[in-house]
């Protein structure tokens, strides 16, 4: 609790005790008034002062003013205990509200707390602790186990495991050694690292992320703007309604006490606080909860859009697939073992620097004796002809083998096939493909289960595109697209769908597409400035399953927002009605104001409890 909150608590207790005492002292008539005025001023003096100051500044319809009118009105009507009690209830409610908001704000801030406090600067063999902002690029810093990496840099010496959870939400540590780049915001776990700083603090990953998340609050969601507009009309309308309620029935019936009292109840209900406070809190909680899982959302409006997304368009390479070639499958000819095929292929490609050759060698994993290979002859566009252990080997495309009179067998899957022949006989073929990420199929299935249409865009051939789409279960695929075609294609898709369309890419060459979509989601963005700039939502690591996670968070957030709007408006409407009919007391009215606000805040703070799915 802050000092202000503690003071309010003490005032509430003292005034509560005095209120009970005043009610028990047997004094009759007007003499009771000063007895009740003591606790009234103890608890309400700041409200009265603020109301007076605000009126002097031309701000009439604020909650302080409303509370003053309502309680002073009650005093005039002779309802002394009620006047003090309502003011007391209001202050206690406000206190509770400010504690609840403060607590959620702190826990959200904690979720997003990746700011490093100090850096250990190494200069002339001495280590001094300095503010990360004072470190210049080129300086050397030392990071001890358990410390946060304060600035982006390159490891000069040492090895360690890095906990990247704060950045990516990914819990398994990443190993770094000499020569590796490291990003600020990670925590070094095991070893001491000496690092040469490459960027000043303002340019580091951590500073960019903090900036992004902190500015997220300034991009308001539609629901937030609705509430703002609503609040502008709500309070004056209820105050006018109160005036009408006080005057017209009283003039007709002549029963001023009853109708003025009902009008005062109206005034207490008229503060829009519950709504105004709980809606941004829900969005803020959603953004904070998401960032704790490595999902950066640039504003409440994107959370809102993501929750309404009906179509998700994926880029293929690097988003759904790994973006690198690896051995997908071996199809040996009858009588040949997979091991023999792979070894022959890898040996044939031993001297080639082509990515396909590299992936074959990687898959084989053996240590080759260069003496076994001779007479290497590259046949451009076709493949390679070598002699392995004195036996001639061909490795390449179909044309290469056919030229030598060997008929290859077509493999049943798409990808780049390397056909291998040894001594004039067909050995089989190895298919190299860009494999889907392990979680991609699961992520697509999860999206479909949520009723979302999935489309894939790719620059690859129709056959490869169709094969990947079929394997992952995508609804639609558009292949053979040049980067510029992707924008046109996305625009066509935008015109087709009535709902929100999200585009997921890796941000490498699809920045225009990212910004054209309703929601642009960049994936695997750790350290990629371009992606962080262009996208609306950034998934820090490259796991497509994070997308469903982000979607669940956004939907939960919007559900809470709707609950709060309906609940707060519903309760207020109900109490306005009951108040007009004379069925609600002043106490009920205070509950409709402060109690609802507190409940709405508690509901909003559920956002912080969102667990990883």
């Amino acid at each position, binding site marked *: 609790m802050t000092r202000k909150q503690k003071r309010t608590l003490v005032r509430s207790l003292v005034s509560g005790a005095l209120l009970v005492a005043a009610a028990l002292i047997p004094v009759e008539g007007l003499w009771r008034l000063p007895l009740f005025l003591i606790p009234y001023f103890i608890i309400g003096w700041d409200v009265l002062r603020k109301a007076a100051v605000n009126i002097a500044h*031309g*701000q009439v319809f604020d909650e302080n003013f409303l509370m003053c009118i309502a309680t002073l009105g009650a005093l005039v009507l002779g309802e002394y205990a009620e006047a003090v009690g309502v003011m007391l209830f209001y202050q206690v409610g406000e206190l509770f509200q400010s504690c609840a908001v403060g607590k959620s704000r702190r826990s959200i801030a904690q979720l997003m707390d990746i700011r490093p406090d100090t850096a250990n600067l190494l200069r002339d063999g001495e280590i001094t602790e300095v503010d990360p902002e004072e470190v210049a690029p080129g300086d050397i810093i030392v990071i001890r186990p358990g410390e946060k990496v304060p600035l982006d840099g390159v490891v000069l010496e040492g090895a360690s495991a890095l906990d990247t959870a704060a950045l990516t939400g990914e819990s398994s540590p990443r190993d770094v050694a000499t020569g590796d780049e490291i990003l600020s915001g990670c925590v070094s776990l095991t070893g001491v690292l000496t690092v040469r700083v490459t960027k000043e603090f303002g340019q580091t990953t951590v500073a960019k992320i903090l900036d992004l998340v902190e500015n997220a609050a*300034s991009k308001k969601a539609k629901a937030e703007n609705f509430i703002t507009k609503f609040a*502008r009309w709500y309070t004056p309308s209820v105050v006018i309604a109160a005036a009408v309620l006080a005057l017209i029935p009283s003039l007709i019936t002549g029963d001023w006490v009853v109708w003025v009292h009902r009008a005062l109840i109206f005034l207490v209900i008229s503060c829009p606080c519950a709504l*105004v406070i709980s809606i*941004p809190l829900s969005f803020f909680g959603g953004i904070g909860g998401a960032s704790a899982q490595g999902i950066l959302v640039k504003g409440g409006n994107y959370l809102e859009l993501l929750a309404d997304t009906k179509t998700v368009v994926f880029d293929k390479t690097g988003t759904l697939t790994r973006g690198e070639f690896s051995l997908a499958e071996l199809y040996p000819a009858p009588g040949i073992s997979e091991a023999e095929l792979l070894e022959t292929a890898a040996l044939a490609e031993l001297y080639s620097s082509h990515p396909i050759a590299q992936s074959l060698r990687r898959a084989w994993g053996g240590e080759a004796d260069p003496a076994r290979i001779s007479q290497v002859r590259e046949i451009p566009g076709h493949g390679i002809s070598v002699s392995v252990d004195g036996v001639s080997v061909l490795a390449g495309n179909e044309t290469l083998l056919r030229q030598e009179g060997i008929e290859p067998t077509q493999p049943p899957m798409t990808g780049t096939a390397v056909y291998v022949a040894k001594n004039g006989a067909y050995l089989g073929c190895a298919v190299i493909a860009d494999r889907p990420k392990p979680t991609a199929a699961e992520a697509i299935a999860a999206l479909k289960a949520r009723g979302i249409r999935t489309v894939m865009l790719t620059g690859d051939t129709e056959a490869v595109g169709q094969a990947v789409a079929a394997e992952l279960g995508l609804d639609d695929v558009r292949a053979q697209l040049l980067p510029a075609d992707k924008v046109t294609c996305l625009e066509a898709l935008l015109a087709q769908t009535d709902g929100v369309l999200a585009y997921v890419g890796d941000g490498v060459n699809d920045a225009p597409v990212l910004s054209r979509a309703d929601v642009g989601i960049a994936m695997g963005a750790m350290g990629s400035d371009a992606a962080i700039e262009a996208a609306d939502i950034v998934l820090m690591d490259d796991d497509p399953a994070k997308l469903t996670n982000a979607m669940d968070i956004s939907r939960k957030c919007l559900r809470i927002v709707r609950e709060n709007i309906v609940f707060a408006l519903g309760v207020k409407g109900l109490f306005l009605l009951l108040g007009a009919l004379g069925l609600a007391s002043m106490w009920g009215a205070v509950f409709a104001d402060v109690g609802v606000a507190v409940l709405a805040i508690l509901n909003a703070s559920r956002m912080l409890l969102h667990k990883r799915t």
Partner: protein
Amino acid sequence: MKKTFKLIDLDCANCARKMEDAIKKLDGVNDASVSFMTQKMTVDADDARFDAIMKDVVKCCKRVEPDCEIVLK
């Protein structure tokens, strides 16, 4: 130019909304946003007169919400 300022003792969401409304109406201010959650205010105003405009912003906030203080640095 866009600048962010810290706010001290901004303790009601409705006041934040009113401050934002009032600042937006000031001459020279292109856009403004007051976040109750982060206790921060972002002001986007004309470069040339930024400091003068900020004086108006401070005055305006004093009028709307006397308890809240803007940290100018």
